[in-house]
Structures are given as structure tokens and as C-alpha cells.
């Protein structure tokens, strides 16, 4: 349907949506490798959760792939894995693999060390004690070998960090206030970088103000999508409690392949495949009258979502949600 859109779309969506298309398996495998470097780097951000969240469960083979792909992003992994808010105790396995990966690659970070240490201490991550202990040991070793460190592990950072005497870089003040300012700015810049990787299309934008704009747009768009989708779900069936129950058991009980098998026919509409549309039509036949009311609303809101997203990859994502509606309207 939109072959020209697919490459950029797939680079992002394949990693993000984790949609389970058998047809997409072949298409996705290559772009995922290239698109993965920046995006799956972010997957390490929420180490276990995001890996499962953003890489589909259907591609379990792909999960070992991400770590070797980005040697340059190891700093990102370091930083990201320090976000104790995102990790949980269940997934110590995966985070340990991430740690071992980051261990094997030689790192020379100045800010990142400090940042990550600050990151690990400041958020209230109680699950993290074991992991952050390991990480801090490694970081301290790295830090001591690093002479030009300009981090200030200030007292306000937390009880775990010792007070460190720093040697300032050439041309920069050693005033405690400016050091604190610098440290804070470094923190903010690090988080900004991570956000840039998360929000599509922010990589090219320079300047924090514009990036913040994009972030705001993205959050707004996501919130509007939630509204819209909940309206759509409410309209779909009056007896929503019963239906959802059965649907959820279908969704929840399926695992990996069965999940894909169950969802592949309807979700193929998002992939815009012709053959699947027929399947979808058959499935929707019995829900025909239910959809009547939804169509009018959906055509409105599909226009309403598209302008909100100025970015191509996200455009195609949201356009897809509008697209399956149109053929449904005309053909059935």
C-alpha cells in the first residue's frame, strides 16, 4: 500500500510496535538491525521492561542482537541502566546480561560516570541495591583511572556516594556553586539525550527548546490516542464487560507465537496487506452494525490525530489506525 513509507516506518515501528506479522518477519529483520542502534539502545533504558515492551515478543531471537550492535551507545546503556526507576527485581537476569555487556566494552566516560552514579542514587529505586552496588564498584574503578573527571558527587546526591575532590577542566570555575550548576546541567542534558532517542524525529533537532516541543507534542498525542481508543472501545460493544473478558483471556493466554497468530489477522490491517484485509472483512462481518457508529467518529479523529504528529514515522503509525477504517467503510 505504501511501499515508500515502509522503510522509515519499519525502522521505527518494527522495533517499537512489536507487531506480530509473519510477513513482516523478513522485512523487519534487516531494518531492525540498522534502526535498532539508536532505538534499541533505548531499550536498555528500561532494561528488562523496555526490551520486552519495544521489541516484540515474537522476535525472541532478536533480543540477544541489540547489545552487540551499538558500541557507541554503551554510554547510553550505562546511563540508561542506571535509571533505577525502570528496573524491577523480576528481571535481574536480563539486566545482568546488560551489565556484562557494558562491562566488556571499554568505556571512557567522564560525565556519564558521574551522571549514572547520580542517577542511581537520586531516584527512589529500592529494587536496585544489588545491581547498583555492582555498577558503582565498576564505575568507581573507571572513575579513579579517569583523571579529568569533573563530576562532583555532592552531598545532596545521596548517602551512598563519598565526597569526591574534583579537578576542574581548563577554563572552568571551581566555585562550588558553578560546579553544582554544571552537575545539574549535565544531568539535565543526559536525560534530554535519552528523551531525544525515545521521541521519534528528535535526533535531527538541535536545541533543547525544540526537542522539548517535540516531547510535549508526543505526550499530547499519546494521551489523545488513549482517549480516542477508549472511546472506540466503548463504542464497539455495549456488553463490553463480557466481550472484553473473553478477548482478554484470548490475548493474555497466548504467548509468543500464539499471540501473533491470534492477532495477526486483524493487525495485518495495520500492515496494509491485501490478503489480510479479506480475513479482516470476514471477521468483522458480524460486527458490522456495531461499526457503523464508530466510523463517523473515527474519520474525524483520524484527521485529528494526524496533524498532531508532524513526524513521518509516527504519522504512518497513526495513519494506520485511520487507514483500516477507510477500507472497512467502503468494502463492507
Amino acid at each position, binding site marked *: 500500500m505504501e511501499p515508500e513509507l515502509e522503510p522509515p516506518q519499519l525502522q521505527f515501528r518494527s522495533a517499537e510496535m512489536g507487531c506480530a506479522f509473519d510477513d513482516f518477519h523478513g522485512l523487519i529483520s534487516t531494518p531492525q538491525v540498522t534502526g535498532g542502534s539508536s532505538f534499541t539502545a533505548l531499550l536498555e533504558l528500561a532494561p528488562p521492561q523496555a526490551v*520486552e515492551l519495544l521489541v516484540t515478543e515474537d522476535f525472541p531471537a532478536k533480543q540477544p542482537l541489540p547489545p552487540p550492535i551499538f558500541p557507541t551507545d554503551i554510554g547510553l546503556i550505562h546511563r540508561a541502566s542506571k535509571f533505577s526507576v525502570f528496573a524491577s527485581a523480576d528481571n535481574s537476569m536480563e539486566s545482568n546480561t546488560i551489565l556484562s555487556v557494558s562491562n566488556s566494552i571499554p568505556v571512557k566516560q567522564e560525565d556519564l560516570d558521574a551522571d549514572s552514579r547520580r542517577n542511581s542514587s537520586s531516584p527512589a529505586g529500592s529494587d536496585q541495591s544489588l545491581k547498583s552496588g555492582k555498577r558503582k564498584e565498576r564505575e568507581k574503578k573507571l572513575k579513579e583511572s579517569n583523571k579529568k573527571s569533573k563530576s562532583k558527587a555532592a552531598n545532596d546526591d545521596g548517602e551512598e556516594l563519598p565526597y569526591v575532590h574534583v579537578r576542574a577542566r581548563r577554563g572552568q570555575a571551581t566555585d562550588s556553586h558553578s560546579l553544582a550548576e554544571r552537575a545539574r546541567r549535565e544531568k539535565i542534558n543526559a536525560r534530554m539525550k535519552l528523551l531525544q532517542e525515545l*521521541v521519534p524525529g528528535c535526533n535531527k533537532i538541535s536545541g533543547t527548546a525544540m526537542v522539548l516541543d517535540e516531547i510535549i507534542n508526543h505526550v499530547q498525542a499519546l494521551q489523545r490516542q488513549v482517549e480516542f481508543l477508549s472511546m472506540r472501545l466503548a463504542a464497539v460493544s455495549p456488553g463490553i464487560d463480557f466481550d472484553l473478558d473473553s478477548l482478554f483471556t484470548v490475548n*493474555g493466554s497466548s504467548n509468543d507465537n500464539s499471540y501473533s497468530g491470534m492477532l495477526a489477522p486483524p493487525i495485518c490491517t495495520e500492515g496494509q496487506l491485501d490478503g489480510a484485509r479479506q480475513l479482516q472483512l470476514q471477521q468483522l462481518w458480524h460486527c458490522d452494525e456495531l461499526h457503523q457508529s464508530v466510523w463517523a467518529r473515527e474519520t474525524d479523529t483520524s484527521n485529528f490525530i494526524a496533524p498532531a504528529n508532524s513526524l513521518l514515522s509516527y504519522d504512518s503509525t497513526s495513519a494506520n489506525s485511520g487507514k483500516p477504517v477507510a477500507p472497512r467503510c467502503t468494502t463492507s
Partner: protein
Amino acid sequence: MKARSSLKQEFLEKWRKGLQIGRNDSTILERKDAIKLSADVAIAATRNAATRWRRALLCDVVSKNPTNKHVVEQILGHKLKNTAATTRLTTACRRRILRRGQNYRRRKRNKRSRALRKLVPGGEEMDGVLLLQETLDYIVSLRAQVDVMRRLAAIT
């Protein structure tokens, strides 16, 4: 069913739990509000992380409509007792924010961070660093929520 405790599956489970409460909804708007409420509470209850926006969201939900408390508690699995903690955090964070000085670029940034604070639940009481951090987590969770809801909508 929770063989792989992924974010999305966890969200789905909690969402389903919330929807099982079964309210008497006749109009579409009521139903949509119920669905959205369950979805929001479910996504805020995932992952066992005590980030600010989650707590703020749950507190907002409860304060807007006290009858929602049942939904929240059912999904969470335990009683809500965070309200006192959040108010204490509020005053501390507010002090931290007010201490920041004036700067031209900062003024430019402030306009946008104000906008961001309005979007992220509980954003009013976060300082700059925390705001970005919470936004990051919030975006990831929102994305998961949207993805699951979209799949469900595509099936039905």
C-alpha cells in the same frame, strides 16, 4: 499467564481486573470514561515502580471521584495510603524549584517545562531534572498502553 512479565501483559491483566468491576454504564461517554479510568490506573500500577507521576495519577483519580477508589484498590491489590507522602514531597520540591535563579535561556525553557508539567501527572511538583526523568518513564508507559488498546480495538 504471567510467564513473561512484560509491561504490556501486566497492563492487560490489570486493565481487565479493573473492568471486571462492572459498573452500570448506559451511555457511550460513561463507558469510555470507565475504560479510560481502568486503563490509566492499570498503566500507573505496572512495574512496581514508585515514580512520582504514577502516584500523582492515582491520587488524582481518587480525588476526582471517590467511587474510583475501588477500582484503584482492586487493580493495585492493596490500599492507597500515599496521599500523605505526596503532600510532604510537594513542599520539599516546591522549595527546590523556587530556588532556581533567572536566566534568559531558562526563561525560554520554563515556558516549555510548564507545558510539560501540565501534561505529565504530578508534574507541577517536580524540578527540572526529575521532570525529564519522569517524562521518559511516562512516555514508555503511555506507548505501551496505546499499543495494547490499539490492538484490542483492532480485534473488536
